[in-house]
């Protein structure tokens, strides 16, 4: 049965995270370091060591999840602990710092850590929320079924267009090849349809923006209205119906791509910022002891 990573094993890692946080806060409350709270007191070193080890362990998740042969816990358990202990990290680190900030490499490490955690929390949010929205959007089918249907529509359009003058074939083939729903992650996230189409206007061809097949459908309607031969007009009408069908199918596909992109995009912050954080952590520890 499916179980959310948050609910893994009766939320055991939530409790672990709460205990670790609670102990840190209690320690900070009780500790009387005879000086402003900072990373250099006994408690400061303790919390700092905890935080650093926790960061290394959290980053190790990226390695563990690729070790398919590993039997050190399940990946699901690791992820559950990764999420809860990661959320506990900023409290430990704040207490370590004694709430002292500045324009320096130490606060840089803190900022990078915060960004990693925020992006991770966003990742948790989308993983909990978007798979449901994805399947709702596809209406029970999966994406390849949607694409099969689209390709079928394309094939039939080509066949019908071959009965019409070359500009109709140009319309169909350019409409297919110049479709652009998700060249880049950014485009997918914004859900923009940058498709274009080649239309014959007068004696010449023009490249025209074709979001949602609008331009193609308008052009076909125009051609149909001008057409004097009823049989040809009927064929044009058939092509229009197919393109309307295509438009109906493209909408959920674009939404599918958008949701899929959202499921992935946070990792583009989470992973590179983690690398930067590990470097900043090293800088933090070294610089503090270079000028001890």
């Amino acid at each position, binding site marked *: 049965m499916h179980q959310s990573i948050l609910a893994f094993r009766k939320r055991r890692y939530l409790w672990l995270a709460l205990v670790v946080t609670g102990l840190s806060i209690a320690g900070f409350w009780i500790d009387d370091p005879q000086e*402003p709270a900072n990373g250099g007191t006994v408690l400061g070193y303790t919390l700092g060591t905890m935080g650093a080890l926790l960061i290394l362990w959290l980053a190790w998740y990226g390695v563990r999840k690729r070790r398919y042969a590993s039997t050190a816990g399940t990946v699901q358990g690791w992820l559950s602990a990764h999420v809860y202990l990661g959320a506990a990290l900023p409290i430990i680190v704040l207490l370590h710092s004694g709430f002292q900030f500045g324009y320096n490499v130490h606060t840089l490490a803190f900022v990078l850590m915060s960004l990693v955690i925020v992006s991770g929390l966003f990742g948790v949010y989308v993983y909990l929320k978007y798979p449901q929205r994805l399947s709702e959007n596809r209406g029970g089918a999966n994406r390849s079924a949607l*694409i099969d249907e689209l390709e079928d529509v394309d094939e039939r359009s080509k066949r019908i267009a071959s009965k019409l003058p070359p500009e109709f074939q140009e319309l169909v083939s350019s409409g297919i090849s110049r479709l652009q729903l998700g060249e880049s992650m950014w485009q997918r996230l914004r859900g923009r349809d940058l498709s274009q189409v080649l239309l014959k206007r007068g004696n010449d061809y023009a490249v025209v923006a074709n979001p949602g097949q609008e331009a193609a459908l308008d052009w076909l309607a125009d051609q149909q209205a001008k057409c004097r031969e009823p049989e040809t007009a009927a064929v044009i009408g058939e092509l229009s119906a197919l393109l309307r069908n295509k438009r109906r199918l493209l909408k959920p596909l674009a939404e599918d791509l958008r949701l899929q992109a959202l499921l992935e995009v946070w990792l583009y912050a989470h992973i590179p910022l983690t690398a*930067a954080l590990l470097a900043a952590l090293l800088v933090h520890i070294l610089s503090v002891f270079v000028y001890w």
Partner: protein
Amino acid sequence: MKFLIRFISRNAAGGTEQHDRLVDAPIITMGRATDRMLHLRDRRARLEHAQLEDQNGKVHITTAALAGVEVNGRSQRDARLVVGDVVEVGSNILRVIEAPPGSDFAFTFELSADAERDASAPGHYAAEAKRFSMRSLSWFLAAAVLLLALVVPGLDVVNPQFAAVARGSKLLPDDTWWLAGPVHTAHTAAGADCQNCHVAAFERVPDEACVDCHEVNRHVAGDTHAVLGERRCASCHLEHNEPPELVKRHQGLCADCHRNLPDDVALENAGDFLLDHPGFKVSLLQPQVNASGETEWVLQHRLLADAQAADRSNLKFNHAAHLDEAGILAPEGRRVIDCAECHQPEPGGARMRPIRMDQNCAGCHSLNFDPDDPRRTVPHGDPDAVMQVLIEYYSARLLGDDPDAGEQRVRRPGRALTRADRDRAAAEARVQAMQVAEDLFERRVCVNCHEVTRSDDPEMPWTVLPVKLTERFFPHSNFTHAAHDTAASACDGCHDASVSESSADVLIPAIESCRDCHGSAVARHNNASQTPSTCIMCHSFHFEAKGTYP
């Protein structure tokens, strides 16, 4: 120019189909972008890859792509096209053909066999989105952090010349990026160069770095506080903290040991100002006459409670009389005086200036001796000099040297003084001087404030006991009057001067008086008007007064 494009595509049966497109334009654009006239379906093509253009009736292919386009197998960025030329961009192939009637230039356009298959593959609708590489971005960010935050500032540690350049530059990162907190304003000058204190990398700041600028005394030599072990200056004097605080003020710093001292330490225990602090002791100067009859001043350290009338300064002074609410008789008449008329703070406001006869007393206590000549005064502080002045004064009057005493001259006009006249006048002057001196020393002037004794010495029978006022009653604490100068605190809030009739009274407040406002270091023991007070608020670890006071 009229371009004829002949599209060639393969159908399912394996044959080819073709259709023509006639374009009347000076330029044919081509690229992967969907708004190009020729849409290139290959990742190797740029969005705006190349163009065919009419240059004076001749057709050229030009490109901005560094790699150029392949014309007949050679990479070129600008090439004239003639019939038979083949242009390749990835899997897109252009072949220049004879222009049929009605066109100026013609070419075929097709995809290579394998590319055709790819383009019609199911991936077309949901091809992988173009994305930057997470891995290279990760390496880039990590390397940037290491370079800017570690390597470049680290050069400051290794190379002083580079450090000077980096710290002077606004753009180069320097080791101020490593600051764990602000440098205290007291160290602004020294803090300009980290190495002034952080002498060696990976070593704590050594005491020598502090002693370079600071002089320190007692408690540092180690004999008094050997128990502290290897404490460094920086154990208590912390830099780079917020709030900036160069001195640890924590109670435990002293009280951890002093609340329960070993038996062999000759100090009373003290753990907290409100709850566990012995009564105040005062340091009083006491006169002692030594074997040769001279007065020596000895410091006595006595419990304040037992020393309420123990101040032996040899001065007679009645605070109550001077502070009389009805006023006192001054040269200009009767007037009320207040404490500040005599007790003036030192610059900085910590302590009071010493009281001096000429500045604080002489305004009222005139040292004149002759009612007929009130401007004449005797000097203060030297009895022999007083006698000398008196004798000279009366001699001059009798011998006529003093122009003011003309009518009393012994000398008759037109006649010189004989030796006998002089001797007689001198004897008479001495008698007069002795009479006036007796009046001054014993009855009218000196005796008001001083202890005067009389001996059988015919030349100078009076002795005035030397006076010395205690300047620091609490040499081991740092009390500053300025910090206590509030509307709520008048002098008599702490000092009972207005009822003190004897200078033997020690007008120093007892500990209870301080506790009105100063409480325990632990806030919950204090009442609303008590401020938490730790040892360091009054005492210092490094005694300024070391050696001067017991």
